[in-house]
């Protein structure tokens, strides 16, 4: 191989790496930009309804000042799951375009259906997003209210023993961050 050809090959590799880094970085930066609360509530569909409800809950305002933002609960942390969720979210763009929930009234009529979607996916992932922060092994049941610690106790020991708990967070904790939909039946299994 001639010296010139060698140099050309090296140049191509360097350009390839730089382009790769820029594209990859750009892609991830853009994805992270859509992964902020400011982005979520830039649509009035989210700002007027679910965001206002979140503001009144313990996930927004509490004694320690730690809070959860929309993506903390609604977007997975692991890259591959996050990407899948983002692809799913393109469906939301379609509904934004057609104004499926563009008034609070429309949102209310769809709320049960929308909530059921979230509950279903949370159940399927064993409440993965809850567990990004809440882990049984770090829970001090003695510091909980008597009822809470009583209810958590069997699941706590399942988790400590490495068994699969019979219940997942969302089974009991529906409506912790947003209003429950009209017609919600606490005895039903969603």
């Amino acid at each position: 191989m001639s010296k010139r050809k060698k140099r050309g090959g090296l140049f191509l590799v360097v350009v390839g790496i730089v382009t790769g880094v820029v594209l990859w970085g750009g892609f991830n930066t853009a994805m992270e930009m859509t992964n902020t609360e400011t982005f979520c509530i830039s649509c009035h569909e989210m700002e007027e309804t679910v965001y206002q409800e979140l503001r009144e809950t313990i996930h927004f305002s509490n004694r320690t000042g730690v809070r959860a933002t929309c993506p903390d609960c609604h977007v997975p942390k692991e890259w591959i799951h996050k990407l899948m969720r983002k692809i799913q979210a393109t469906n939301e763009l379609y509904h934004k375009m057609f104004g499926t929930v563009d008034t609070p009234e429309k949102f209310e009529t769809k709320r049960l259906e929308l909530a059921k979607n979230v509950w279903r996916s949370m159940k399927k992932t064993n409440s993965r997003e809850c567990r990004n922060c809440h882990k049984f092994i770090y829970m001090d049941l003695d510091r909980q209210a008597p009822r809470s610690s009583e209810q958590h106790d069997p699941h706590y020991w399942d988790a400590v023993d490495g068994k699969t708990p019979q219940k997942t967070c969302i089974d009991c904790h529906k409506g912790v961050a947003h209003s429950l939909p009209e017609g919600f039946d606490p005895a039903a299994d969603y």
Partner: protein
Amino acid sequence: MKKIALLPFAVIAAMFLSTAVPADVQSLRGYKLNAMAKKPANVKVVNVKGGIERSYKLQPPMVPHEVDKYKINLKNNGCMKCHSEATYEKEKAPKVGDSHYENRDGKVLKTVSSRRYFCNQCHAPQMSADPLVQNDFQGAK
């Protein structure tokens, strides 16, 4: 005529004079009437296992736990998450009283009557606050 013209001035003067409080008047709260109010105590809702005893017959039971997470509105009644006929056994919570299932014609309904819907009209959580003024009230046992 002159008297009537002077009346507003007299009223204003009286208003200014009345703000002056004699220094020796004490309020029941234990400090001077014209002193700044004390910072309110940081009180919390009490959690009482087994419930709070009634003070008199037919008293609506008081709520022995926090209720700030539960909302009662047109769409939902958060209390019924545990206290409804469908969930009370599973949640080991007291069921809503039988009288609450009757409508105004005395007909027994399957779910809580709408006139009993707003639980916190009668059932209130209690704070860990001492009474501002001591009293020796004894409830009927």
